[in-house]
């Protein structure tokens, strides 16, 4: 609107003053430059602000931290994780893992969300000298996320974000390696 007014006022002055043709052309170019500038800035601002904040990487990282705090604390594995008789994850802990760790995968309703938006996988390994033996694993959430979260290319930025964390902890005198993989989808709310 202001540009139209400016353009009309510019023409008014040009017509009234009977300026040289070169000055008229310069004035027209000036308004064209203004229009291009406005269009450019408007486009850039709209492009920037129309993209949502992507917090999935932070969410996945926080989820991994929460799991780590739940299965191990102060360098010792949580006493509820393994059975005493054999070094296997207790069924009670495995089945009620989300409750035991105060985690919920409930999400707000969204028309495109049919499956779960979170994924977690915890692998337990026993470290004996240089060899590593599988103990057990806990998997919860949407396992499809795991299959596609390794892609890092720009074209795959709409895909879920995943975080992998691993650390050692003690079970008595045994050294246990815990490998945690977490993934968050929620693409529709984090990527345009």
């Amino acid at each position, binding site marked *: 609107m202001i540009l139209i007014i*400016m353009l009309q*006022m510019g023409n008014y*002055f040009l017509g009234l003053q009977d300026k040289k043709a070169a000055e008229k052309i310069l004035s027209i170019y000036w308004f064209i430059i203004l229009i291009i500038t406005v269009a450019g*800035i408007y486009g850039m601002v709209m492009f920037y602000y129309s993209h949502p904040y992507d917090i999935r990487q932070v969410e996945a990282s926080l989820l991994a931290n929460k799991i780590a705090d739940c299965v191990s604390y102060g360098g010792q594995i949580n006493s509820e994780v393994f059975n005493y008789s054999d070094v296997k994850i207790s069924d009670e802990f495995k089945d009620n893992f989300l409750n035991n760790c*105060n985690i*919920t995968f409930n*999400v707000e309703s969204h028309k495109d969300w049919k499956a779960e938006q979170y994924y977690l996988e915890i692998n337990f390994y026993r470290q004996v000298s240089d060899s590593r033996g599988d103990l057990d694993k806990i998997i919860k959430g949407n396992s499809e996320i795991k299959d596609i979260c390794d892609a890092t290319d720009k074209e795959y930025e709409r895909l879920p974000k995943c975080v992998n964390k691993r650390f050692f902890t003690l079970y008595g005198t045994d050294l246990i390696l815990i490998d945690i993989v977490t993934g968050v989808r929620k693409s529709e709310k984090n990527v345009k």
Partner: protein
Amino acid sequence: MKNEPFKRVSNQIEMKKRGKRASILVENVVFIVLNLVFLTILILFIARQGSGAILLEESYAKQIALIMDSAKPGMDIFIDFEKGIEKIKDSFGDEYYTNSSKFQSTIIVFNDNIVTVKLKEGKREGYSYSFFNDIQLNDFNYYVTDGKLFFRFTR
């Protein structure tokens, strides 16, 4: 008497010159004023885009969701809420951020593990975002104090 016609012509030339100078001055002033108006509108547009209610709602909802995810018992966490207060003042009124119960039932609402932020009055429901931490409403308290949104996690 002889010089009278010459004086008249000279005066006319002088007036024409003054008129031309005045018109150049007016043109330049108008040009500068219009440019300033243009720049001001552009800056206002950018500033308004950055502090729009919808954008702030998303930003606060996601910040709060991350706070809830990282919260542990005994923690006190606060975030800057100045822009949010401005929006609440404009749309709802002062009591909606000074009165905790009104604030908790209208502006920032927790429904299980979903937080909804609404900074503009109207039919819109605000912006909702979920967090994975299974924290209960009586495990924490939140309110606005000194331009900040304050969270206290008790359990």
